[in-house]
Each structure stands twice: as C-alpha cells, then as structure tokens.
C-alpha cells in the first residue's frame, strides 16, 4: 500500500529547461512534504519542504507546489542544470516522526 507515489521512474530534460517531478499521496493526515535529492553512492540530502498550510514554497531554482484537494505535489527546477541529475525522493508525514518515502524519480539533465 503505497501512500506516497512517484509514478515516473525517470525524467530526461535539456539543460536550461524546466524539470517537473510529480508526487501523489493518499493519506489526508499528512502535514508536511519534503523533497530529498540523492546522488549515486551518497546518502539523500534535503532539498526543500512545504507544509499543508501553504501551496507554494520557493528556494532559488527550486519550487514546490502543493495541491491538497488533488493530493498532489510537484517539484519544479528552473533552469535545470547537469548537476541536478540525481534521484529525487518525495517524502510525506503527519504529526509524528514517521516519514513515508516515494520510490524516487531519476532526473537526467542533458548538457
């Protein structure tokens, strides 16, 4: 029973264009949503988060959008750079410590 779904295993974009990574969740009790980025042979690193009281959070080239009615969030990277090539995990959780992670999306940004 996947409570957090990343339906696209991979995404390929051209350098300078926008990357849009999507995530759907089923648990309406989730309060916070986070994106982690992972390079090969490294641990995940925190990228950006958003709480359920907001619908947008921006940090430089990274913007996360939350649509609570659709239980959907997306991560926009503009402009995309080759160094952004990594696996991106969506994670969600409620009022406790437990984060539920999606399976991840492999982003490849071509020069």
């Amino acid at each position, binding site marked *: 029973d996947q409570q*957090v779904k990343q339906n696209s*295993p991979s995404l390929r974009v051209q350098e300078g264009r926008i990357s849009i990574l999507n995530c759907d969740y089923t648990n309406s009790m989730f*309060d*916070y949503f*986070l994106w982690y980025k992972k390079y090969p*042979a*490294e*641990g*995940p*690193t*925190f990228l950006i*988060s958003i*709480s359920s009281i907001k619908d947008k959070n921006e940090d430089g080239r990274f913007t996360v959008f939350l649509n609570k009615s659709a239980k959907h969030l997306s991560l926009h990277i503009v402009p995309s750079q080759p160094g952004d090539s990594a696996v991106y*995990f969506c*994670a969600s*959780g*409620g*009022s*406790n*410590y*437990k*984060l*539920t*992670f*999606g*399976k*991840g999306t492999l982003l490849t940004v071509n020069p």
Partner: protein
Amino acid sequence: NAGVTQTPKFRILKIGQSMTLQCTQDMNHNYMYWYRQDPGMGLKLIYYSVGAGITDKGEVPNGYNVSRSTTEDFPLRLELAAPSQTSVYFCASSYSLQINTEAFFGQGTRLTVV
C-alpha cells in the same frame, strides 16, 4: 564537520551470520534513525532513537536490534542475516523529531546476504 558517518560501506554476509552497522554523528543531534532502501523502492524506517538510552521501532524492525548508549553513536545489529535483508542501509540524524525537520544522512552501507 564530518556529519553522519557509516561503516562499513560494503559488506557481504552469509545467511545466519551476524554483524553490526556502525553510525556516528558529530552534530550533537538527539534524534537518530536507521532506514533501509531496497532496489527500486523508497526508504523505510527500521528503528529510531530520541536520545541516549531511548529507542523505538519503525516500520520494518524485524530482524534488527539497536542501542543508543551515547548521543553520537547508533549502531544497528543484524543477528541472523537473511537474504531479505539485502539492501542499502542509511543512518540519519536530526535536531528535532518534527516531521518537517531536515534529516542528515550518512553515505549508506550496501549489504548483500548470500
């Protein structure tokens, strides 16, 4: 700062063997976690700790044990290795248990049980 350090990076175990995955952090974080990531899957929480001497089960604790004798160290013990425990293991720490708090991860331990 080293952050979160895990050892070893790679290990091959035979079925029934035991081992301890080491994790240490130098950020003085009270909260520490062990996750496993199976191929093509997201991370699943095995155990977590809210401070020295206090641990609790996560989503997939069976087959594992933990201890937290100091703030810095949070080792994960596999007593009787099984092929189902073949995975990549990540240790993480954070300064808060709040769900929106950034967690810092180690580089991972790739374990194969044959």
